[in-house]
């Protein structure tokens, strides 16, 4: 199963991923519509990204699709299920926010009366944020592949230049 990974060094904080996420989760996948539509019923206008305060760049908070999802155990309405990926049904959600309370990663976000999460853009080939990112900071690949790439990248960085010591080690 492929997953979304985030490489911080490449990110410049343009916010394209956020806009793409909003547009993808609108009814007709259009950014303008997403701004004008009201998030009720089937029309969805929500992004699954959180803006961090300390760091200026938006950082994707994506669902990790755990093997035994604590959010699923907490769900009282049967809206959350797991089949290869963890999904939640929009219509079945009653907004009790048990999943928000149970997710140890804070990956389920409370929306007005529903709980939303990154669904990895289920019906598309690649998630919208991955497609939108101009810097390739968000990648969508197998975890083994990512780990290997990352190791290579770090090794390259290490050998090519001296990395500064980590600061704030008091």
């Amino acid at each position, binding site marked *: 199963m492929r997953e979304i990974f985030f490489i911080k060094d490449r990110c410049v904080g343009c916010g394209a991923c956020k806009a793409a996420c909003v547009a993808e989760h609108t009814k007709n996948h259009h950014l303008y519509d997403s701004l004008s539509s009201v998030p009720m019923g089937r029309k969805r206008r929500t992004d699954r990204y959180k803006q961090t305060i*300390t760091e200026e760049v938006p*950082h994707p*908070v994506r669902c990790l699709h755990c093997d035994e999802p604590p959010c699923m155990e907490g769900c*009282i*309405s049967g809206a959350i299920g797991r089949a290869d990926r963890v999904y939640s049904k929009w219509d079945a959600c009653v907004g009790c926010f048990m999943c928000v309370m149970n997710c*140890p*990663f804070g990956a389920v976000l*409370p929306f007005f009366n529903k709980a939303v999460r990154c669904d990895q853009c289920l019906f598309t080939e690649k998630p919208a944020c991955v497609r939108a990112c101009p810097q390739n900071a968000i990648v969508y690949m197998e975890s083994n592949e990512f780990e290997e790439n990352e190791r290579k990248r770090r090794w390259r960085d290490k050998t090519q230049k001296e990395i500064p010591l980590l600061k704030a080690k008091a």
Partner: protein
Amino acid sequence: MVVYNKYLIIGNGVAGIYCAFNIRMRDRKGEITIVTDENYPFYSRPLITDVMTGKKQADDIVLLPENGYKRYGFTLMKGVQVKKAVFKERCVTTTAGKQRFDRLVFAAGAVPKKIPFEGEGIFYVRTLEDAERIRAYLPKVKKAVVFGGGPIGIKAAYALMTAGIPVNIIISSSQMLSRVLDERSSHYLQVLFEQNGARFWFNSDIKEIVRRKKGLKGIVTDKGEMVPGDILIVGKGVNPNLDIVRNAGVRIDKGILVDDYMETNCEGVYAAGDVAQAKVVTNSNQQSAISNQPSAGSSLSLQGAQHHGGLSLRAQRGNLTNRIATAMPRDDSKMLNVEHRTLNVELASPPFKDVLSLWPVGAEQGKIAGQNMAGGKRVYGGGVGSNSIEYFGLKAISMGITRGEGCEAVLFERDGIYRRYLFDGERLVGAILVGDINDAGVLLHAIRQALPVRGILQSAISSQRSAFPFQSLRGAERRGGLSLRAQRGNLTNGLPLPLRRDCDDNKDSAPRTSEIDSPLSALRSQLSMEVLF
């Protein structure tokens, strides 16, 4: 002839169903029989208040329809009551005949606490049948009385108010949701309820019920006040359903005592859900223990930490990847204590056991029991009392200890957001979040794993950066604080949160006090957003 294992599940609630599914995942061919005294398949018990007011039909809240049972090979026996159980003989007598079993899980749930009055117009809210009965009665009702200020009573009151019925609420303590929220946050909710037409009678109990020819006229409290209403709904809380197992040979305290594997003292007999008295991480007992013995506080919390696997085995062995090793405190005295704690687990365990009547706790206990029944060896990590409520668009989550006298509280209150953290030493033991519930799960995880997160939380609050201190933690994740394993969701060792030791220097980090005069103005920003959409 091949003989398969026979599993018997008593109770068709969330614990029983999670148990059945987890048995099925490990044992494809065992016979699984589910016995319930109700006439419905598995339904969502918290949602019966919606059925009560007619917002939803009974079929809507059924989570596993009957063909679902067939699909997974469960035999469902509806409307069957257990008469007698002798666990040593591996036999249970029901109204539909004798049932033999190899492994049994007792997940019969709870029964509502009764009041000493009976008759027409008095209802309890526990089962779907109760809800249907109230629904049939509601057309006659012009005004309702709810007795009980716990989550059940308040939820029933909220459902009635959304259906347009004014509600009078009688509460025996001095505030609503006294087990869940603290004084200030419950005042937030009380104002909201009063704006929407509820009236409260605090510190009161039912003394007398006044009837007219048909139905109720009102209720007289023990202070002599008359509370008018046509229906009385009792939501005082629940007691474990222990009548069947009193003489069955299992150890009973508040509920059925279970060990770390959810097994009772009878071999092959497990308990889960509302009947089980299992390990808890933080509870009121522990709270009193801390406040009574302040000197022993640190060792107690350490015992607690060991108890639910605060330090994993890997961490104890010092077999950490260097990245995490730099993040975790390498204090030799603590490492020594680890040995000590391991020895003390048996001694420390009885006060750490309690009955938690909560949906997620039941689900997790059922899961652990099911896996162990089918031959696994999984340890229950311990439950944390936690509640998530949402009334009139105001979201609130409370977890762990909420009213600790021996603990230190840190407040954050701004723009309709109220957060209260309770610390015991370095670790977080309780939290109340009102208005904004982001990252509640991260806090719950910190409580569960006894992570020393005080520095991070306090520095984030005192520097007034944000109400969501854990977002800065995500920054740490990106800096490489979390391993790739954690990124992939392989949560066996929990979330190793990186620590910032330099945060302890902020001695002047006074808790941020309220800038807001009344809770009303605090709510305004929150509510105006709700009205907009």
